[in-house]
């Protein structure tokens, strides 16, 4: 479906950037530049652009005067690849810092808490779901203080019930066992 110099040009830019990053694994002195925050960020946007070009490839292009549905998407795709390439290139030319290292425990436990919310909400309603969420999320903290947990719990229940149930009149059960 895809043809044209531009498309292949964009692919080549992306491939070169990705290969440069891969090649840098073997070359320690390049590793810091290629695995820097900036280089990877550029690579990411090149990937976005290529993905857009790939998926939007089937849309008719048209001409500048009579634009087809694929005209603007393709233009934006090329611009994204181009901007990404510039960011990567700048990064490879200069010293820069690596991506932030983070904490896994809160990062995984808090979304898990939201998942718990979804499951308990379907089984028992809004209030048990909020309780489950806060209990799981508490485990993500560095030091666990149950007093604060209780305060946050009360506050969140009042807020959610007030806003969603009474202000917005959303159809959601507060407490209802379905098992």
């Amino acid at each position: 479906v895809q043809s044209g110099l531009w498309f292949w040009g964009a692919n080549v830019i992306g491939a070169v950037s990705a290969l440069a990053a891969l090649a840098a694994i073997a070359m320690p002195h390049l590793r810091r530049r290629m695995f820097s925050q900036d280089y990877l960020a550029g690579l990411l946007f090149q990937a976005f652009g290529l993905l857009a070009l790939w998926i939007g490839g089937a849309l008719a292009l048209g001409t500048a005067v009579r634009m087809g549905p694929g005209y603007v998407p393709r233009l934006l795709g090329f611009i994204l690849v181009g901007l990404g390439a510039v960011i990567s290139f700048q990064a490879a030319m200069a010293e820069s810092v690596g991506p932030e290292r983070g904490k896994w425990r809160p990062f995984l436990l808090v979304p898990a808490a939201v998942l718990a919310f979804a499951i308990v909400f379907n089984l028992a309603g809004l209030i048990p779901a909020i309780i489950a969420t806060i209990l799981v999320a508490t485990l993500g903290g560095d030091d666990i203080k149950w007093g604060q947990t209780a305060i946050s719990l009360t506050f969140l229940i009042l807020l959610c019930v007030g806003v969603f149930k009474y202000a917005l009149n959303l159809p959601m059960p507060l407490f209802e066992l379905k098992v």
Partner: protein
Amino acid sequence: MDTLAQLAQGFAVALTPVNLLWALVGVTLGTAVGVLPGVGPALTIALLLPLTYKVDATGVFILFAGIYYGAMYGGSTTSILLNTPGESATIVTALEGHKMARRGRAGAALATAAIGSFVAATIGTIGLTFVAKPIVELALKFGPAEYFALMVLAFVTVSAVLGRSAIRGLASLFLGLFLGLVGMDTLTGQPRFTFGLPELLDGINVIVVAVGLFAVGESLHALWKRSSLTSDTLTVTDSVWLTRQDWQRSWKPWLRGSAIGFPIGALPAGGAEIPTFASYYLEKKLSRHPEEFGHGAIEGVAGPEAANNASAAGVLVPMLTLGLPTSATAAIMLSAFQSYGIQPGPLLLDNQPQLVWGLIASLYIGNIMLLVLNLPLVGLWAKALTIPPPLMYAGILVFATVGIWGASQSWVDLLLLYTIGVVGLVMRLFDFPAAPVIVGMVLGPIAEQEFRRALTVSQGDLTIFLTKPLSATLLALAVILIAAPPAWRLVRRLRAGPVQPALR
């Protein structure tokens, strides 16, 4: 006098009990989120966007404006007591204010910040009241070409101002423009990037994107970050009021800070950072006690805090008169306009006088509420600083999820919310600003429309954008904003010549 009559009508709207309640809820919530480090007005307003499905526009915008102003007040409390500036605009407050708190003058620092904020925000709101009409009258003379040029300027300023570098901002902007393409093509009726999902035919809802990027993405990033809060929270030991000498040393910085903050905030490329620093250096220069700066000078809190609040009012000028957002919070408010089907721009003031003037009037009222709320209750707010972050972010995620689910009851929207949340996390990890995405999504289609209109007028002649003087000026400004900083760096490097490589 026309303006005053309309303002009076605005007060009639803002003083209805329901709207007073919205304003009170807004400033309270705003102060709370301003105090909490890691939660800003942008996130809060994003979280409350689902309200736009149920509540009338005037009430929601009064609420949002209250949050916006309230967060400014609350932010200074955190800076002074915790030395953790919530945003770049309060760095200076943290600098001097925390030193004052260390010396047992926390109460005086908080008081001068609160009263200064009140003075500055009121002056800024008066400025907004009287500047709005003339700007709108000018903007109404705009043709499609000028309007398109203005959009381009908006794109460029948002990208250049809000990120670490212009190119990162532009990348975010184009991502947003791209998200705006999803759905049915208006001209040919062909579905684009819908992955065969009928839910996506209408396009991605900008509210889902705003909540995903600012609430989910921000929370995930905050949870990921290693740096946690230091428990170095100072308590207020002295009375939260000013001595006679404090008043004498504060009132001029308040006025000067407002005078600097409002115009810079109103400029498309202004922001709140430049005026606060400008005010700080000005006060340091003019002060009779320059040796106190850096050790807790009250002028160093009064001036920048006033500048910060006045610029917050200034940001509302381009937002309400031209539909141009120049801060992340303004970008999210813009998406609320879209949710109501209200087109922001010069026509807003004529089409929605109730909304705009009610909003402006509520800013005056909210300011008074904030002063009352902040001075006596500051100790209570400081308590909020002790909430453990995981609980806070879990609460935010639950609120975001329920809000989106309640608004549309669509699994596709929930999936999108979390996908975009992860995108928002990745963007923050790689230091891309999120606000240009929203701006691109909201303004992109409008810009395209004006572009096509302009070309219809000129019968396909692209030079129309350059031959009209106003549009040419605006485009030239946009080019300067993008090209000037790198060019300036190049010039400096060339001047520095061989010294630079030796330094490396």
